[in-house]
């Protein structure tokens, strides 16, 4: 949100880089011709969106949530139930899920805005468990651990696509949405207020920043976007159960992806997803689920101890050095 205006050379480099990146992203389905890799690529998008959405309340506003799986679950279950029970298109279900999750996020924000440090973390964790227990035990609605399937009879109007590449493009749209919101927040009044509150709440209040309003709005936006990712995930996998949508481990992994990438920045969580998700998949495929998760645990410890600002901070330093070396940046 600060910094001098970039020089023309720097701008040109940025523009060229952006165009190349966009072309590359659009060409991904053509480049990855195996369903396995494209499938993984779509999951990277899901996680990029989730980590990015988490970052809005955790990174900018400083509320380290360990309950975000709850909102993911709300997005997934709302859309699937509306489609299966009432025939409502998941596109619409996605909006309903987002509004529901946004309201829940706001409610959680209202009751937790005063809590600091571990107390906030534990409150979000408890909230996540409440939703998970409901998903497992409210069998009349969710069919419990048996889960729910989305019958494939829709077509595009029902967010169900015949080929993987369409999911990739829709997923790109989802990430673009979350990234857009993040960038907008960074540059907006709300962004300034959130970061000020994160850095020093008393000072921010004494400058006229209204704590409750800001935190509740951030929590609601973050929750709503997480739910949107939940709906997309549900239509992509076409099967949901509590283990894959509301479990505590999911909340942890959302945070992990954002932290490894770099919280408090718009691009950090995306970088985190690009690195962590394929890494996890490769490890799982070669060594199995246990070792893969053990590596996640180690990675988390090492990153928070040695680089709490995430990999994006290191990447920026390297980028600056390259820029200086090539004369693009002085």
């Amino acid at each position, binding site marked *: 949100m600060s910094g001098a205006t970039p020089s023309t050379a720097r701008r040109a480099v940025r523009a060229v880089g952006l165009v190349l990146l966009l072309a590359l992203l659009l060409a991904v389905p053509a480049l990855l011709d195996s369903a396995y890799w494209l499938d993984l690529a779509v999951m990277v998008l899901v996680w990029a969106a989730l980590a990015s959405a988490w970052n809005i309340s955790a990174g900018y506003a400083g509320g380290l949530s360990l309950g975000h799986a709850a909102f993911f679950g709300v997005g997934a279950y709302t859309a699937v139930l509306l489609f299966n029970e009432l025939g409502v298109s998941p596109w619409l279900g996605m909006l309903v899920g987002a509004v529901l999750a946004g309201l829940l996020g706001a409610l959680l924000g209202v009751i937790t805005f005063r809590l600091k440090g571990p107390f906030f973390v534990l409150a979000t964790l408890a909230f996540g468990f409440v939703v998970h227990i409901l998903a497992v035990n409210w069998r009349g609605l969710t069919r419990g651990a048996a889960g729910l399937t989305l019958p494939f009879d829709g077509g595009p109007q029902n967010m169900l696509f015949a080929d993987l590449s369409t999911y990739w493009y829709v997923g790109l749209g989802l990430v673009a949405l979350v990234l857009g919101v993040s960038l907008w927040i960074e540059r907006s009044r709300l962004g300034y207020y959130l970061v000020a509150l994160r850095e020093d709440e008393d*000072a921010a209040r004494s*400058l*006229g920043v209204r704590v409750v309003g800001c935190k509740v709005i951030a929590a609601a936006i973050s929750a709503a976007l997480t739910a949107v990712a939940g709906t997309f995930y549900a239509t992509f996998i076409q099967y949901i159960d509590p283990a894959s949508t509301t479990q505590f481990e999911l909340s942890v992994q959302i945070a992990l992806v954002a932290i490894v990438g770099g919280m408090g920045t718009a691009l950090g969580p995306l970088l985190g997803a690009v690195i962590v998700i394929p890494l996890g998949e490769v490890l799982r495929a070669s060594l199995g689920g246990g070792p893969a998760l053990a590596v996640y645990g180690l990675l988390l410890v090492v990153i928070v101890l040695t680089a709490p600002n995430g990999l994006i901070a290191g990447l920026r330093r390297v980028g600056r050095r390259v820029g200086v070396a090539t004369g693009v940046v002085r």
Partner: protein
Amino acid sequence: MLGIEHVTVDFDGLRAVDDVSFEVAEGQVVGLIGPNGAGKTTLFNVVSGLVIPTRGRVRLAGEDVARLGPAERSRRGLGRTFQVVKPFGGLSVLDNVVVGALTRGQRVGEARETAAGILTRLGLERFATTTARSLPLALRKRLEVARALSTGARLLLLDEIMGGLNPTEVNETLDLLESLRAEGLTFLVIEHNMHAIMRVAEHVVVINQGVRIAEGTPEEVTQHPEVVAAYLGEPHESA
């Protein structure tokens, strides 16, 4: 402008402020002095809304603000600095000041201009892009003032903004206060530097162990026997 009426604050059975009352009239510079631990900063916290008094009330421009939080009081024209400085450490110096300008309703672009103007006025423009955390203490104190001004406050509570400054810096700060005062701002100032207080304040309130023990012109209070007793043994640079 500011009325403090019978304010009492208890912390865990300890009385930090005991039935203190005084007024600050518009355009005045009032000094608030007293030994360490007298309750000066607690009184500031009561006025700015960070501490809720056990008894008593605070009036801002005639309005009882008991039910208003710090943010609402700020939006009614009250600004403050913190003795233990509270910069937004990870933000640039400019962005620190932008936050306050935004709360007066300016758009981000305008707010950045306002903030830049304030930095220039306080001689901080060279540090605009510096991370606030990495400023030396004297400059962080000045950043506190810059932020308090950014909201367009009409009444400023300054908590030891001259502590740790060298004589030249103290003089610069005093000049700044005088020019702000000429613009019609009102000040309540906590200061240990008696020389500085004598120069800017026309009215001084002395508190000791939470109790207001004297009030009057700087000359009057320094003659006051209780004030002399309270400060006995504490060497001060009296004028």
